[in-house]
């Protein structure tokens, strides 16, 4: 099952979705078994921003049919904290590290890309563009022009593979993917969570501290499959697919639709070792399907 992705050699095609697995916390909970049986072929960090962030006020979670809405708000230690404290610890995981970064202006993203890229522990970068550009007011990831301008700025700053994580809420996601490809992205990843909302059953007010949040889990799996399929027809670069993957068959479907790697997010909340199970199920399916 070993696979090549943007020049990286991975043991299998299953990685984690950004922000859904904290390897350092998991090691505290599960000890060194986590390292011995690390569930992912590469480890993707939670989104790192330039400055430290507290994240959104709680409540941050709301369960829905086949999934959940989260309004976490990207809490993180900020670039410096991440590079100093987390990266050295993550380097012990024994799998390639992909660092997910987000900035609120092109200059911020450029700063992040340059600084992260300098670190040899880092194998690839993922750009989270599901946020507005404070300069233009446009969602970076929803507009082909924004994406192109962003990549023209940051692409020259690193030789490492650059993955652009698309937002599912664009009118024309394949057009955004195409713009990213043309401007030099090495791969795209999709889908990020889909905007959703819930009301407090007692008060009728928005439940989530952040008012709205993002839906993840099997509820969005058919949406992910459709978008991956459409993007695969639009761009020739590798795709990291995610959205509601629970079983090997879901991963297999996404790969049939054109994905090179599949990321597991919400399912890890239900089963911390979901990545291992899904990778094994996928290997079974692949060996049965192509004997």
């Amino acid at each position, binding site marked *: 099952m070993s696979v090549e992705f943007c020049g990286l050699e991975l043991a299998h095609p299953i990685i984690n979705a950004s*922000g859904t697995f904290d390897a350092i916390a998991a090691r505290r909970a599960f000890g060194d078994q986590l390292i011995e049986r690390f569930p992912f072929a590469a480890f993707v960090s939670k989104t790192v921003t330039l400055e430290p962030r507290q994240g959104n006020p*709680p409540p941050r979670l709301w369960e829905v049919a*086949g999934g959940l809405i989260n309004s*976490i708000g990207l809490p993180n230690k900020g670039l410096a904290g991440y590079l100093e404290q987390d990266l050295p610890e993550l380097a012990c995981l024994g799998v390639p590290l992909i660092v997910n970064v987000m900035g609120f202006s092109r200059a911020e993203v450029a700063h992040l890309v340059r600084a992260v890229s300098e670190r040899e522990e880092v194998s690839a970068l993922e750009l989270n563009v599901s946020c507005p550009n404070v300069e233009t007011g446009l969602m970076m990831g929803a507009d082909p022009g924004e994406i192109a301008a962003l990549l023209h700025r940051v692409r020259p700053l690193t030789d490492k593979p650059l993955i652009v994580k698309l937002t599912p809420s664009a009118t024309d996601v394949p057009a955004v993917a195409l713009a990213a490809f043309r401007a030099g992205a090495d791969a795209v990843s999709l889908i990020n969570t889909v905007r959703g909302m819930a009301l407090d059953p007692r008060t009728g007010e928005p439940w989530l501290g952040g008012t709205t949040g993002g839906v993840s889990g099997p509820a969005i799996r058919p949406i992910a499959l459709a978008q991956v399929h459409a993007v695969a027809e639009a761009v020739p670069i590798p795709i990291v697919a995610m959205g509601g993957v629970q079983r090997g068959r879901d991963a297999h479907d996404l790969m049939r639709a054109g994905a090179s790697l599949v990321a597991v997010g919400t399912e890890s*909340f239900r*089963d*911390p070792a979901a990545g291992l199970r899904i990778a094994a199920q996928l290997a079974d399916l692949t060996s049965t399907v192509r004997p």
Partner: protein
Amino acid sequence: MTIGSRPAPFGRRAATVTARETYGAYVVLRCHDPGGPQPRAGQFYMLAAAERWGGGEAERPFLPRAFSVLRALERDLHFLLEDVGPGTSRLTELAPGEDLLLVGPLGNGFTGPREGRTPLLVGGGVGVAPLAIWQDQLGRAARALLGFRDRVHADGAALLHDPTIATDDGSVGYHGLVTDLLGEELDVRADQIEVYACGPPAMLEAVRAMCAERAVPGQLALESGMACGFGACFGCVVPTVHGYIRLCLEGPVLDAQVLPTAAIVGAGH
């Protein structure tokens, strides 16, 4: 054997339900967990039914649910459950022979009382769960004050040794709040007590305020909505004087002093 020295096994494992008992409004589920380590008092597990986890109210549950360990004897884990929604509804209907899926033990658990202080356990409703295992470990001399809504809930008091009981409606024991009882204790010997409390947000907040006022050390077992239980989702944060902390990782037991409030938004029902 050092209690609670081993981390939780990595991943989710099946544990067969061995018994289901009712205590008034509550259900105690026992399950056999040969693979897991001995939990510490105050630690919790993420539980789901192995079959048909879903298809309840609003097509839920989907995520596992957090439960304090009530008791841990001979590789059997006991949990105390109150049916408040689709997850607890599914779990409380499990019969012996059916499987749970569990992850844990998770979180930190209680630590022993400071030098010169004796433990006082203060529980409200289903929050008595972690106090039972804590009393098992501290010894029966550890006194417990327990508050319940009414008689049918007060049946949960049978899970602890010789508790003093308060009920909101006066149907059993003292007519009033368990924090009234705590107040009486603190009036007499605030300097000799360490409080261990678990219960609904409003009760915990009252306990916290009382401890703060009289400089009594308190360890509060909190609740907040959890998706993962092992630090993965950042969903369970509660505000502390040090900023937000993930309750599943840094808690669920927190020193009362670090909390600006113990009335956690969105917890309880």
